[in-house]
Protein backbone atom coordinates (compact mmCIF):
# COMPACT_ATOMS: atom_id res chain seq x y z
CA UNK A 1 0.00 0.00 0.00
CA UNK A 2 1.50 3.31 -1.04
CA UNK A 3 1.41 6.64 0.74
CA UNK A 4 -1.31 8.05 -1.51
CA UNK A 5 -3.67 5.23 -0.67
CA UNK A 6 -3.05 5.68 3.02
CA UNK A 7 -4.03 9.36 2.72
CA UNK A 8 -7.20 8.45 0.91
CA UNK A 9 -8.08 5.88 3.53
CA UNK A 10 -7.48 8.37 6.33
CA UNK A 11 -9.73 10.88 4.54
CA UNK A 12 -12.45 8.28 4.17
CA UNK A 13 -12.29 7.32 7.85
CA UNK A 14 -12.73 10.99 8.80
CA UNK A 15 -15.80 11.21 6.53
CA UNK A 16 -17.22 8.07 8.05
CA UNK A 17 -16.97 9.55 11.52
CA UNK A 18 -18.56 12.82 10.38
CA UNK A 19 -21.46 11.20 8.48
CA UNK A 20 -23.36 7.98 9.28
CA UNK A 21 -23.35 7.12 5.60
CA UNK A 22 -19.79 7.53 4.51
CA UNK A 23 -17.65 6.87 1.51
CA UNK A 24 -14.47 4.90 1.40
CA UNK A 25 -12.34 4.31 -1.66
CA UNK A 26 -9.23 2.40 -2.36
CA UNK A 27 -7.47 1.56 -5.58
CA UNK A 28 -5.58 -1.59 -6.32
CA UNK A 29 -8.09 -4.26 -5.12
CA UNK A 30 -8.45 -6.95 -7.71
CA UNK A 31 -10.85 -9.85 -8.05
CA UNK A 32 -13.05 -11.81 -10.40
CA UNK A 33 -15.09 -9.64 -12.73
CA UNK A 34 -18.81 -9.95 -11.97
CA UNK A 35 -20.71 -7.45 -14.03
CA UNK A 36 -19.60 -5.31 -16.91
CA UNK A 37 -21.35 -1.96 -17.32
CA UNK A 38 -20.02 0.45 -19.86
CA UNK A 39 -16.35 0.86 -19.45
CA UNK A 40 -16.01 0.04 -15.80
CA UNK A 41 -16.18 -3.55 -14.53
CA UNK A 42 -17.37 -4.43 -11.03
CA UNK A 43 -14.85 -6.98 -9.88
CA UNK A 44 -16.14 -7.58 -6.37
CA UNK A 45 -19.02 -6.45 -4.18
CA UNK A 46 -19.45 -7.66 -0.65
CA UNK A 47 -21.06 -6.71 2.66
CA UNK A 48 -18.63 -6.98 5.55
CA UNK A 49 -18.26 -6.03 9.15
CA UNK A 50 -15.02 -4.18 8.79
CA UNK A 51 -12.05 -3.44 6.58
CA UNK A 52 -8.56 -4.28 7.58
CA UNK A 53 -5.99 -2.65 5.31
CA UNK A 54 -8.74 -2.39 2.69
CA UNK A 55 -9.50 -6.09 2.91
CA UNK A 56 -13.11 -6.92 3.83
CA UNK A 57 -13.30 -8.64 7.21
CA UNK A 58 -15.98 -11.20 8.01
CA UNK A 59 -18.11 -10.91 4.88
CA UNK A 60 -21.65 -11.63 5.96
CA UNK A 61 -25.32 -11.12 5.22
CA UNK A 62 -26.41 -10.66 8.82
CA UNK A 63 -25.26 -7.86 11.10
CA UNK A 64 -26.04 -7.71 14.78
CA UNK A 65 -27.06 -4.22 15.76
CA UNK A 66 -24.45 -4.45 18.48
CA UNK A 67 -21.77 -4.33 15.78
CA UNK A 68 -22.90 -0.76 15.06
CA UNK A 69 -22.04 -0.61 11.37
CA UNK A 70 -22.18 -2.39 8.02
CA UNK A 71 -19.84 -1.82 5.12
CA UNK A 72 -20.57 -2.25 1.43
CA UNK A 73 -17.25 -2.85 -0.26
CA UNK A 74 -16.94 -2.66 -4.07
CA UNK A 75 -13.90 -3.10 -6.28
CA UNK A 76 -13.71 -2.10 -9.97
CA UNK A 77 -11.16 -3.27 -12.49
CA UNK A 78 -10.61 -1.79 -14.96
CA UNK A 79 -11.61 1.83 -14.52
CA UNK A 80 -10.74 3.42 -17.87
CA UNK A 81 -11.54 6.94 -16.83
CA UNK A 82 -12.62 8.89 -13.83
CA UNK A 83 -16.29 8.24 -13.20
CA UNK A 84 -18.84 8.03 -10.45
CA UNK A 85 -20.93 5.23 -9.08
CA UNK A 86 -23.65 5.13 -6.43
CA UNK A 87 -24.33 2.94 -3.41
CA UNK A 88 -28.03 3.21 -2.75
CA UNK A 89 -29.06 1.78 0.61
CA UNK A 90 -32.64 0.57 1.08
CA UNK A 91 -34.33 -0.43 4.30
CA UNK A 92 -37.04 -2.71 2.96
CA UNK A 93 -38.13 -0.80 -0.16
CA UNK A 94 -37.49 2.66 1.27
CA UNK A 95 -34.35 4.51 0.23
CA UNK A 96 -32.25 5.19 3.27
CA UNK A 97 -29.18 6.71 1.63
CA UNK A 98 -27.73 7.26 -1.83
CA UNK A 99 -23.99 7.66 -1.68
CA UNK A 100 -22.00 9.01 -4.57
CA UNK A 101 -18.51 7.50 -4.98
CA UNK A 102 -15.76 8.46 -7.38
CA UNK A 103 -13.73 5.88 -9.30
CA UNK A 104 -10.35 6.65 -10.75
CA UNK A 105 -8.22 4.74 -13.29
CA UNK A 106 -6.77 2.26 -13.66
CA UNK A 107 -8.66 0.35 -10.96
CA UNK A 108 -10.42 1.43 -7.82
CA UNK A 109 -11.88 0.03 -4.65
CA UNK A 110 -14.42 1.99 -2.72
CA UNK A 111 -16.97 1.45 0.02
CA UNK A 112 -19.74 3.04 1.97
CA UNK A 113 -21.11 2.22 5.36
CA UNK A 114 -24.00 2.93 7.66
CA UNK A 115 -24.12 3.39 11.38
CA UNK A 116 -26.88 1.39 12.97
CA UNK A 117 -29.82 2.87 14.84
CA UNK A 118 -32.37 0.88 16.78
CA UNK A 119 -35.00 1.39 14.10
CA UNK A 120 -32.72 -0.04 11.40
CA UNK A 121 -33.42 -3.65 12.37
CA UNK A 122 -34.81 -5.54 9.40
CA UNK A 123 -33.93 -6.50 5.84
CA UNK A 124 -31.72 -4.19 3.79
CA UNK A 125 -30.23 -4.05 0.32
CA UNK A 126 -27.60 -1.99 -1.39
CA UNK A 127 -27.94 -1.28 -5.10
CA UNK A 128 -24.66 -0.49 -6.82
CA UNK A 129 -25.35 1.65 -9.89
CA UNK A 130 -23.21 3.41 -12.45
CA UNK A 131 -23.47 7.09 -13.35
CA UNK A 132 -26.34 6.31 -15.74
CA UNK A 133 -28.30 4.50 -13.04
CA UNK A 134 -27.69 1.01 -14.40
CA UNK A 135 -27.71 -1.49 -11.56
CA UNK A 136 -24.37 -3.28 -11.41
CA UNK A 137 -25.16 -5.48 -8.43
CA UNK A 138 -27.53 -5.79 -5.49
CA UNK A 139 -26.25 -6.87 -2.07
CA UNK A 140 -28.83 -8.03 0.45
CA UNK A 141 -28.38 -8.29 4.19
CA UNK A 142 -30.25 -8.02 7.46
CA UNK A 143 -29.68 -6.07 10.63
CA UNK A 144 -30.79 -8.13 13.61
CA UNK A 145 -30.89 -7.78 17.35
Amino acid at each position, binding site marked *: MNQRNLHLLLFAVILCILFPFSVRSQSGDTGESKISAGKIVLARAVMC*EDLLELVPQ*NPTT*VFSIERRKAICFTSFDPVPEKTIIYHQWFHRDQTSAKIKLTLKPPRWSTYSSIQFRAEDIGPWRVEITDSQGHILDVL*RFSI*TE
Partner: protein
Amino acid sequence: MDKFIYLILSLRWQDIIDISLVSYILFRFYVLFRGTNAFRVLIGMTILWIFQQIAVSIGLIVTSWVVQGVVALGAFIIIVIFRNEIRTVLLARNLKFIFWGVSSKTFTSTIEIIVQSVLDLARRNCGALIVLPGKEDLEEVIQKGIPWKGEISKEMILSVFWPDNPVHDGAAVIQGDQIVQVGAILPLSRRDDLPTYFGTRHRAALGLSEAADVLVIAVSEERGDVVAAQDSQLKVIKQKRRLEQILLQHMGTAAKKSRESIKERLMVITAALFSIIFVTGVWFSVSKGVYTLATFEIPVVYMNRDPAMEIIRTSVNTVSLELEGSGALIKSIKPDQIQVKLDLSKSKVGPNSFTITRESISLPPGIILKGLTPPVVDVDLDVLIKKDLSVQIDWVGKLPDHFVLTDATIKPKTVEIIGGKRMLEKMSTIYTEKVPLNNLEANGTITVNLALNPASLKTASDSNEKVAITYATKLRDNGSNF
Protein backbone atom coordinates in the same frame (compact mmCIF):
# COMPACT_ATOMS: atom_id res chain seq x y z
CA MET B 1 -103.88 6.22 24.24
CA ASP B 2 -101.60 7.84 21.71
CA LYS B 3 -98.89 5.39 22.65
CA PHE B 4 -101.28 2.49 22.12
CA ILE B 5 -102.30 3.81 18.71
CA TYR B 6 -98.64 4.28 17.84
CA LEU B 7 -97.93 0.67 18.85
CA ILE B 8 -100.78 -0.61 16.69
CA LEU B 9 -99.72 1.51 13.72
CA SER B 10 -96.12 0.38 14.04
CA LEU B 11 -97.13 -3.24 13.50
CA ARG B 12 -95.74 -4.72 10.32
CA TRP B 13 -97.38 -7.49 8.30
CA GLN B 14 -94.68 -9.85 9.58
CA ASP B 15 -95.74 -9.00 13.13
CA ILE B 16 -99.38 -9.81 12.35
CA ILE B 17 -98.36 -13.18 10.90
CA ASP B 18 -96.07 -13.75 13.86
CA ILE B 19 -98.84 -13.17 16.40
CA SER B 20 -101.41 -15.12 14.36
CA LEU B 21 -99.21 -18.17 13.96
CA VAL B 22 -98.23 -18.40 17.60
CA SER B 23 -101.82 -17.76 18.71
CA TYR B 24 -103.04 -20.54 16.47
CA ILE B 25 -100.37 -22.92 17.79
CA LEU B 26 -101.42 -22.10 21.36
CA PHE B 27 -105.08 -22.60 20.45
CA ARG B 28 -104.29 -25.95 18.84
CA PHE B 29 -102.54 -27.01 22.03
CA TYR B 30 -105.71 -26.18 23.93
CA VAL B 31 -107.92 -28.07 21.49
CA LEU B 32 -105.71 -31.14 21.49
CA PHE B 33 -104.85 -31.38 25.16
CA ARG B 34 -107.83 -29.90 27.03
CA GLY B 35 -109.17 -32.21 29.67
CA THR B 36 -105.86 -34.03 30.00
CA ASN B 37 -103.66 -33.98 33.07
CA ALA B 38 -100.79 -32.64 30.96
CA PHE B 39 -102.93 -29.63 30.03
CA ARG B 40 -103.71 -28.89 33.67
CA VAL B 41 -100.03 -29.06 34.57
CA LEU B 42 -99.27 -26.84 31.57
CA ILE B 43 -101.68 -24.21 32.85
CA GLY B 44 -99.97 -24.39 36.24
CA MET B 45 -96.62 -23.94 34.56
CA THR B 46 -97.89 -20.92 32.64
CA ILE B 47 -99.09 -19.33 35.85
CA LEU B 48 -95.69 -20.03 37.41
CA TRP B 49 -93.95 -18.50 34.41
CA ILE B 50 -96.06 -15.35 34.67
CA PHE B 51 -95.25 -15.26 38.37
CA GLN B 52 -91.56 -15.58 37.58
CA GLN B 53 -91.75 -12.68 35.10
CA ILE B 54 -93.40 -10.55 37.75
CA ALA B 55 -90.73 -11.60 40.26
CA VAL B 56 -87.99 -10.62 37.81
CA SER B 57 -89.63 -7.29 37.02
CA ILE B 58 -89.89 -6.29 40.66
CA GLY B 59 -86.42 -7.55 41.49
CA LEU B 60 -87.13 -10.69 43.53
CA ILE B 61 -83.94 -12.39 42.48
CA VAL B 62 -84.02 -15.60 44.51
CA THR B 63 -87.74 -16.08 44.00
CA SER B 64 -87.36 -15.73 40.25
CA TRP B 65 -84.49 -18.26 40.32
CA VAL B 66 -86.53 -20.76 42.30
CA VAL B 67 -89.60 -20.36 40.10
CA GLN B 68 -87.45 -20.59 37.01
CA GLY B 69 -86.04 -23.87 38.32
CA VAL B 70 -89.53 -25.19 39.04
CA VAL B 71 -90.70 -24.20 35.55
CA ALA B 72 -87.70 -25.92 33.98
CA LEU B 73 -88.34 -29.01 36.06
CA GLY B 74 -92.03 -28.84 35.21
CA ALA B 75 -91.30 -28.85 31.50
CA PHE B 76 -89.24 -31.97 32.03
CA ILE B 77 -91.99 -33.55 34.11
CA ILE B 78 -94.64 -32.84 31.48
CA ILE B 79 -92.64 -34.56 28.79
CA VAL B 80 -91.54 -37.53 30.87
CA ILE B 81 -94.54 -38.25 33.07
CA PHE B 82 -97.24 -37.40 30.57
CA ARG B 83 -95.52 -38.82 27.55
CA ASN B 84 -98.06 -41.62 27.22
CA GLU B 85 -100.94 -39.19 27.52
CA ILE B 86 -99.40 -36.86 24.96
CA ARG B 87 -98.73 -39.76 22.65
CA THR B 88 -102.30 -41.02 23.03
CA VAL B 89 -103.72 -37.60 22.24
CA LEU B 90 -101.57 -37.24 19.14
CA LEU B 91 -101.98 -40.81 17.88
CA ALA B 92 -105.73 -40.83 18.39
CA ARG B 93 -106.18 -38.00 15.92
CA ASN B 94 -105.35 -37.67 12.29
CA LEU B 95 -103.15 -34.95 10.82
CA LYS B 96 -106.12 -32.91 9.60
CA PHE B 97 -107.61 -32.79 13.09
CA ILE B 98 -104.26 -31.90 14.69
CA PHE B 99 -103.98 -28.84 12.45
CA TRP B 100 -107.60 -27.89 11.92
CA GLY B 101 -110.39 -29.82 13.65
CA VAL B 102 -112.21 -28.82 16.82
CA SER B 103 -113.61 -31.70 18.85
CA SER B 104 -116.70 -31.20 20.89
CA LYS B 105 -117.05 -33.08 24.11
CA THR B 106 -118.93 -36.30 23.59
CA PHE B 107 -122.08 -36.12 25.65
CA THR B 108 -123.44 -39.60 25.82
CA SER B 109 -126.54 -38.33 27.53
CA THR B 110 -128.89 -40.15 29.83
CA ILE B 111 -131.47 -40.22 27.07
CA GLU B 112 -129.11 -41.91 24.65
CA ILE B 113 -128.20 -44.49 27.29
CA ILE B 114 -131.84 -45.17 28.05
CA VAL B 115 -132.75 -45.44 24.37
CA GLN B 116 -129.92 -47.82 23.63
CA SER B 117 -130.66 -49.92 26.70
CA VAL B 118 -134.39 -50.14 25.94
CA LEU B 119 -133.78 -51.16 22.34
CA ASP B 120 -131.26 -53.75 23.45
CA LEU B 121 -133.66 -55.14 26.06
CA ALA B 122 -136.43 -55.30 23.44
CA ARG B 123 -134.16 -57.14 21.04
CA ARG B 124 -133.34 -59.67 23.75
CA ASN B 125 -137.00 -59.95 24.84
CA CYS B 126 -136.09 -58.87 28.34
CA GLY B 127 -138.99 -57.28 30.12
CA ALA B 128 -138.26 -53.87 31.60
CA LEU B 129 -140.02 -51.04 33.35
CA ILE B 130 -138.26 -47.70 33.54
CA VAL B 131 -139.72 -44.79 35.42
CA LEU B 132 -138.71 -41.26 34.60
CA PRO B 133 -140.31 -38.94 37.14
CA GLY B 134 -141.61 -35.54 36.15
CA LYS B 135 -142.01 -32.64 38.56
CA GLU B 136 -144.04 -34.55 41.10
CA ASP B 137 -142.69 -36.54 43.95
CA LEU B 138 -143.38 -40.25 43.46
CA GLU B 139 -142.73 -41.38 46.99
CA GLU B 140 -146.41 -41.71 47.79
CA VAL B 141 -147.39 -43.25 44.49
CA ILE B 142 -144.94 -46.08 44.08
CA GLN B 143 -144.08 -48.73 46.54
CA LYS B 144 -140.58 -48.07 47.59
CA GLY B 145 -138.06 -50.32 45.91
CA ILE B 146 -134.44 -50.91 46.70
CA PRO B 147 -132.28 -47.81 46.80
CA TRP B 148 -129.57 -47.97 44.20
CA LYS B 149 -127.99 -44.57 43.50
CA GLY B 150 -125.83 -45.89 40.73
CA GLU B 151 -124.61 -43.84 37.80
CA ILE B 152 -126.60 -44.74 34.76
CA SER B 153 -125.07 -46.89 32.08
CA LYS B 154 -126.34 -49.27 29.48
CA GLU B 155 -124.71 -52.23 31.21
CA MET B 156 -126.27 -51.24 34.52
CA ILE B 157 -129.78 -51.11 33.04
CA LEU B 158 -129.31 -54.42 31.25
CA SER B 159 -128.14 -56.09 34.43
CA VAL B 160 -131.08 -54.72 36.45
CA PHE B 161 -133.59 -56.26 34.06
CA TRP B 162 -131.70 -59.43 33.39
CA PRO B 163 -134.13 -62.35 33.98
CA ASP B 164 -132.08 -63.93 36.76
CA ASN B 165 -131.81 -60.69 38.66
CA PRO B 166 -134.13 -60.73 41.74
CA VAL B 167 -135.28 -57.19 41.03
CA HIS B 168 -135.89 -57.59 37.32
CA ASP B 169 -139.66 -57.69 37.69
CA GLY B 170 -139.79 -54.33 39.45
CA ALA B 171 -139.36 -50.90 37.98
CA ALA B 172 -136.14 -48.91 37.88
CA VAL B 173 -136.51 -45.23 38.73
CA ILE B 174 -134.11 -42.92 36.96
CA GLN B 175 -133.53 -39.38 38.14
CA GLY B 176 -131.01 -37.28 36.29
CA ASP B 177 -128.12 -39.52 35.45
CA GLN B 178 -128.72 -41.93 38.32
CA ILE B 179 -130.75 -45.05 38.86
CA VAL B 180 -132.13 -44.19 42.26
CA GLN B 181 -134.32 -47.27 42.84
CA VAL B 182 -134.76 -50.74 41.43
CA GLY B 183 -137.44 -53.34 42.06
CA ALA B 184 -140.06 -50.64 42.63
CA ILE B 185 -143.69 -51.71 42.60
CA LEU B 186 -146.01 -49.47 40.57
CA PRO B 187 -149.77 -49.06 40.92
CA LEU B 188 -151.70 -51.00 38.27
CA SER B 189 -154.21 -49.37 36.00
CA ARG B 190 -157.78 -50.42 36.40
CA ARG B 191 -158.79 -49.61 32.89
CA ASP B 192 -160.59 -52.36 31.06
CA ASP B 193 -160.15 -51.10 27.52
CA LEU B 194 -156.61 -52.26 27.21
CA PRO B 195 -155.73 -54.81 24.57
CA THR B 196 -155.45 -58.30 25.89
CA TYR B 197 -151.83 -58.64 24.87
CA PHE B 198 -150.78 -55.94 27.32
CA GLY B 199 -149.60 -57.63 30.47
CA THR B 200 -148.91 -56.53 34.00
CA ARG B 201 -145.94 -54.34 33.02
CA HIS B 202 -148.11 -52.31 30.69
CA ARG B 203 -150.81 -51.95 33.31
CA ALA B 204 -148.23 -50.86 35.85
CA ALA B 205 -146.82 -48.33 33.42
CA LEU B 206 -150.23 -46.94 32.62
CA GLY B 207 -151.24 -47.00 36.29
CA LEU B 208 -148.35 -44.80 37.30
CA SER B 209 -148.92 -42.42 34.39
CA GLU B 210 -152.50 -42.03 35.56
CA ALA B 211 -151.39 -41.21 39.08
CA ALA B 212 -148.51 -38.84 38.47
CA ASP B 213 -146.62 -36.69 36.06
CA VAL B 214 -144.27 -39.35 34.88
CA LEU B 215 -143.01 -41.14 31.82
CA VAL B 216 -142.79 -44.90 32.04
CA ILE B 217 -141.08 -47.02 29.40
CA ALA B 218 -142.18 -50.64 29.31
CA VAL B 219 -140.53 -53.41 27.33
CA SER B 220 -142.62 -56.46 26.67
CA GLU B 221 -141.03 -59.72 27.66
CA GLU B 222 -143.22 -61.74 25.24
CA ARG B 223 -143.14 -59.60 22.09
CA GLY B 224 -140.17 -57.39 22.70
CA ASP B 225 -142.11 -54.21 21.83
CA VAL B 226 -141.65 -50.88 23.53
CA VAL B 227 -144.46 -48.87 25.01
CA ALA B 228 -144.34 -45.40 26.55
CA ALA B 229 -146.91 -44.50 29.16
CA GLN B 230 -147.57 -40.84 29.79
CA ASP B 231 -150.58 -38.76 30.73
CA SER B 232 -152.74 -41.89 31.08
CA GLN B 233 -151.91 -42.98 27.56
CA LEU B 234 -149.94 -45.83 26.14
CA LYS B 235 -147.93 -45.30 22.99
CA VAL B 236 -146.30 -48.14 21.15
CA ILE B 237 -142.86 -47.06 20.05
CA LYS B 238 -141.52 -48.57 16.88
CA GLN B 239 -138.80 -46.14 15.98
CA LYS B 240 -135.73 -45.20 17.92
CA ARG B 241 -136.13 -41.57 16.95
CA ARG B 242 -139.67 -41.47 18.31
CA LEU B 243 -138.48 -42.83 21.63
CA GLU B 244 -135.77 -40.16 21.74
CA GLN B 245 -138.34 -37.45 21.04
CA ILE B 246 -140.62 -38.62 23.80
CA LEU B 247 -137.76 -38.77 26.28
CA LEU B 248 -136.48 -35.36 25.20
CA GLN B 249 -139.89 -33.80 25.57
CA HIS B 250 -140.37 -35.33 28.98
CA MET B 251 -136.95 -34.54 30.40
CA GLY B 252 -136.60 -31.14 28.70
CA THR B 253 -133.00 -31.95 27.87
CA ALA B 254 -133.17 -30.76 24.28
CA ALA B 255 -132.63 -27.24 25.48
CA LYS B 256 -130.09 -28.49 27.95
CA LYS B 257 -128.11 -30.16 25.19
CA SER B 258 -128.33 -27.06 23.08
CA ARG B 259 -127.11 -24.99 26.01
CA GLU B 260 -124.21 -27.36 26.48
CA SER B 261 -123.36 -27.04 22.82
CA ILE B 262 -123.44 -23.24 23.04
CA LYS B 263 -121.36 -23.39 26.19
CA GLU B 264 -118.90 -25.62 24.41
CA ARG B 265 -118.64 -23.21 21.50
CA LEU B 266 -118.21 -20.31 23.86
CA MET B 267 -115.37 -22.18 25.55
CA VAL B 268 -113.61 -22.67 22.21
CA ILE B 269 -114.14 -19.04 21.21
CA THR B 270 -112.92 -17.91 24.63
CA ALA B 271 -109.85 -20.12 24.28
CA ALA B 272 -109.16 -18.68 20.83
CA LEU B 273 -109.55 -15.10 22.08
CA PHE B 274 -107.39 -15.85 25.12
CA SER B 275 -104.71 -17.28 22.83
CA ILE B 276 -104.70 -14.14 20.70
CA ILE B 277 -104.71 -11.77 23.68
CA PHE B 278 -102.05 -13.76 25.55
CA VAL B 279 -99.73 -14.07 22.57
CA THR B 280 -100.25 -10.42 21.63
CA GLY B 281 -99.34 -9.44 25.18
CA VAL B 282 -96.27 -11.61 25.19
CA TRP B 283 -95.32 -10.35 21.73
CA PHE B 284 -95.60 -6.72 22.76
CA SER B 285 -93.69 -7.32 25.97
CA VAL B 286 -90.89 -9.05 24.04
CA SER B 287 -90.67 -6.92 20.92
CA LYS B 288 -91.95 -3.58 22.15
CA GLY B 289 -91.03 -3.80 25.79
CA VAL B 290 -88.35 -1.76 27.48
CA TYR B 291 -86.15 -0.45 24.71
CA THR B 292 -82.43 -0.99 24.93
CA LEU B 293 -79.67 0.75 23.04
CA ALA B 294 -76.65 -1.38 22.21
CA THR B 295 -73.56 -0.96 20.07
CA PHE B 296 -72.32 -3.70 17.75
CA GLU B 297 -69.04 -3.82 15.84
CA ILE B 298 -69.91 -5.33 12.47
CA PRO B 299 -67.43 -6.25 9.73
CA VAL B 300 -67.96 -4.52 6.41
CA VAL B 301 -68.59 -6.86 3.48
CA TYR B 302 -67.45 -5.48 0.13
CA MET B 303 -69.53 -6.82 -2.75
CA ASN B 304 -69.64 -6.74 -6.55
CA ARG B 305 -65.98 -5.83 -6.90
CA ASP B 306 -64.61 -5.91 -10.44
CA PRO B 307 -62.58 -9.15 -10.52
CA ALA B 308 -59.78 -7.28 -12.28
CA MET B 309 -59.42 -4.96 -9.30
CA GLU B 310 -58.16 -5.56 -5.81
CA ILE B 311 -58.93 -3.81 -2.56
CA ILE B 312 -55.61 -2.35 -1.48
CA ARG B 313 -56.71 -0.49 1.61
CA THR B 314 -59.87 0.33 3.50
CA SER B 315 -60.26 3.06 6.08
CA VAL B 316 -62.09 0.66 8.40
CA ASN B 317 -62.72 -3.04 8.61
CA THR B 318 -65.70 -2.74 10.91
CA VAL B 319 -68.38 -0.17 11.56
CA SER B 320 -69.98 0.55 14.86
CA LEU B 321 -73.79 0.28 14.77
CA GLU B 322 -76.02 1.73 17.46
CA LEU B 323 -79.12 -0.45 17.55
CA GLU B 324 -82.34 0.00 19.46
CA GLY B 325 -84.93 -2.62 20.31
CA SER B 326 -86.48 -4.46 23.19
CA GLY B 327 -84.00 -5.90 25.64
CA ALA B 328 -84.97 -9.46 24.75
CA LEU B 329 -84.51 -8.87 21.03
CA ILE B 330 -81.20 -7.06 21.49
CA LYS B 331 -79.94 -9.91 23.67
CA SER B 332 -80.98 -12.52 21.14
CA ILE B 333 -79.12 -10.90 18.24
CA LYS B 334 -76.41 -13.10 16.77
CA PRO B 335 -73.52 -11.46 14.91
CA ASP B 336 -74.41 -13.11 11.62
CA GLN B 337 -77.89 -11.56 11.73
CA ILE B 338 -76.43 -8.11 11.11
CA GLN B 339 -74.61 -7.35 7.89
CA VAL B 340 -73.11 -4.23 6.43
CA LYS B 341 -72.61 -4.59 2.69
CA LEU B 342 -71.00 -2.06 0.39
CA ASP B 343 -71.59 -2.27 -3.33
CA LEU B 344 -68.31 -1.74 -5.21
CA SER B 345 -69.82 -2.17 -8.67
CA LYS B 346 -69.42 1.55 -9.43
CA SER B 347 -65.99 1.94 -7.90
CA LYS B 348 -62.94 3.06 -9.85
CA VAL B 349 -59.19 2.49 -9.60
CA GLY B 350 -57.75 4.59 -6.79
CA PRO B 351 -59.40 6.00 -3.69
CA ASN B 352 -63.21 5.69 -3.42
CA SER B 353 -65.56 6.93 -0.73
CA PHE B 354 -68.77 5.11 0.12
CA THR B 355 -71.51 6.38 2.37
CA ILE B 356 -73.14 3.63 4.39
CA THR B 357 -76.89 3.96 3.90
CA ARG B 358 -79.71 2.19 5.71
CA GLU B 359 -80.09 -0.01 2.64
CA SER B 360 -76.52 -1.22 3.11
CA ILE B 361 -77.37 -2.64 6.52
CA SER B 362 -79.50 -5.71 7.12
CA LEU B 363 -80.98 -6.04 10.60
CA PRO B 364 -83.23 -8.60 12.28
CA PRO B 365 -86.94 -7.69 12.50
CA GLY B 366 -87.82 -5.32 15.30
CA ILE B 367 -84.36 -3.77 15.55
CA ILE B 368 -83.94 -0.08 14.71
CA LEU B 369 -80.72 1.57 13.57
CA LYS B 370 -80.06 4.70 15.62
CA GLY B 371 -76.59 5.57 14.41
CA LEU B 372 -73.40 4.33 12.84
CA THR B 373 -69.73 5.22 12.99
CA PRO B 374 -68.08 6.02 10.65
CA PRO B 375 -70.76 6.90 8.12
CA VAL B 376 -68.23 6.98 5.27
CA VAL B 377 -65.76 4.27 4.30
CA ASP B 378 -62.74 4.91 2.09
CA VAL B 379 -61.74 2.05 -0.17
CA ASP B 380 -58.58 2.08 -2.25
CA LEU B 381 -58.81 -0.13 -5.33
CA ASP B 382 -56.17 -1.10 -7.82
CA VAL B 383 -55.84 -3.12 -11.02
CA LEU B 384 -54.21 -6.49 -10.58
CA ILE B 385 -50.90 -7.10 -12.33
CA LYS B 386 -48.16 -9.71 -12.13
CA LYS B 387 -44.59 -8.81 -11.28
CA ASP B 388 -41.41 -10.75 -10.62
CA LEU B 389 -40.01 -9.76 -7.23
CA SER B 390 -36.64 -10.67 -5.79
CA VAL B 391 -36.88 -12.75 -2.64
CA GLN B 392 -34.97 -11.62 0.44
CA ILE B 393 -34.55 -13.39 3.75
CA ASP B 394 -35.85 -11.57 6.79
CA TRP B 395 -33.41 -12.76 9.42
CA VAL B 396 -34.23 -12.20 13.09
CA GLY B 397 -32.59 -13.12 16.36
CA LYS B 398 -28.91 -13.36 16.95
CA LEU B 399 -26.07 -15.68 16.01
CA PRO B 400 -23.52 -16.54 18.66
CA ASP B 401 -20.86 -13.78 18.71
CA HIS B 402 -18.12 -16.00 17.42
CA PHE B 403 -20.07 -17.00 14.31
CA VAL B 404 -20.58 -15.16 11.06
CA LEU B 405 -23.21 -16.01 8.47
CA THR B 406 -20.98 -16.01 5.42
CA ASP B 407 -23.41 -17.13 2.79
CA ALA B 408 -27.16 -17.46 2.36
CA THR B 409 -28.60 -18.28 -1.02
CA ILE B 410 -32.29 -18.49 -1.71
CA LYS B 411 -34.09 -20.57 -4.26
CA PRO B 412 -35.94 -19.39 -6.24
CA LYS B 413 -34.34 -15.96 -6.32
CA THR B 414 -37.51 -14.39 -7.72
CA VAL B 415 -41.21 -15.19 -7.55
CA GLU B 416 -44.09 -13.91 -9.60
CA ILE B 417 -46.48 -11.95 -7.43
CA ILE B 418 -50.03 -10.80 -8.24
CA GLY B 419 -51.17 -7.59 -6.65
CA GLY B 420 -52.39 -4.05 -7.15
CA LYS B 421 -50.54 -2.20 -9.90
CA ARG B 422 -49.84 0.92 -7.90
CA MET B 423 -48.52 -1.14 -5.03
CA LEU B 424 -46.40 -3.56 -7.04
CA GLU B 425 -44.83 -0.71 -9.01
CA LYS B 426 -43.26 0.48 -5.77
CA MET B 427 -42.05 -2.96 -4.77
CA SER B 428 -38.97 -4.77 -5.95
CA THR B 429 -38.54 -7.25 -3.12
CA ILE B 430 -40.73 -9.80 -1.41
CA TYR B 431 -39.51 -10.94 1.98
CA THR B 432 -39.67 -14.29 3.63
CA GLU B 433 -41.36 -14.81 6.93
CA LYS B 434 -39.01 -14.09 9.81
CA VAL B 435 -36.21 -16.65 9.95
CA PRO B 436 -34.64 -17.08 13.41
CA LEU B 437 -30.86 -17.18 13.53
CA ASN B 438 -30.71 -18.71 16.98
CA ASN B 439 -31.47 -22.24 15.85
CA LEU B 440 -29.14 -22.38 12.86
CA GLU B 441 -26.55 -25.11 12.60
CA ALA B 442 -23.11 -24.60 11.00
CA ASN B 443 -24.66 -24.92 7.60
CA GLY B 444 -27.77 -26.36 6.07
CA THR B 445 -30.93 -25.78 4.10
CA ILE B 446 -34.26 -24.67 5.46
CA THR B 447 -37.62 -24.03 3.83
CA VAL B 448 -39.61 -20.97 4.75
CA ASN B 449 -42.80 -19.25 3.60
CA LEU B 450 -43.00 -15.90 1.89
CA ALA B 451 -44.50 -13.09 3.91
CA LEU B 452 -47.21 -11.81 1.57
CA ASN B 453 -47.73 -8.40 3.05
CA PRO B 454 -50.17 -6.76 2.51
CA ALA B 455 -52.55 -9.69 2.47
CA SER B 456 -53.91 -8.64 -0.93
CA LEU B 457 -50.70 -9.96 -2.52
CA LYS B 458 -50.74 -13.47 -3.93
CA THR B 459 -48.23 -15.65 -5.64
CA ALA B 460 -48.99 -16.46 -9.26
CA SER B 461 -50.41 -19.91 -9.78
CA ASP B 462 -47.08 -21.29 -11.01
CA SER B 463 -45.09 -19.79 -8.13
CA ASN B 464 -44.62 -21.44 -4.79
CA GLU B 465 -45.14 -19.62 -1.52
CA LYS B 466 -42.20 -21.54 -0.05
CA VAL B 467 -38.53 -20.90 -0.74
CA ALA B 468 -35.40 -22.85 0.21
CA ILE B 469 -32.51 -21.13 2.00
CA THR B 470 -29.06 -22.68 1.88
CA TYR B 471 -26.70 -21.07 4.37
CA ALA B 472 -23.20 -21.41 5.73
CA THR B 473 -21.51 -20.01 8.83
CA LYS B 474 -17.95 -19.83 9.97
CA LEU B 475 -15.96 -18.71 12.97
CA ARG B 476 -15.43 -14.98 13.14
CA ASP B 477 -11.97 -13.66 12.35
CA ASN B 478 -10.39 -12.40 15.53
CA GLY B 479 -9.10 -9.29 13.79
CA SER B 480 -12.50 -7.76 13.34
CA ASN B 481 -13.34 -4.60 15.21
CA PHE B 482 -16.23 -4.51 17.60
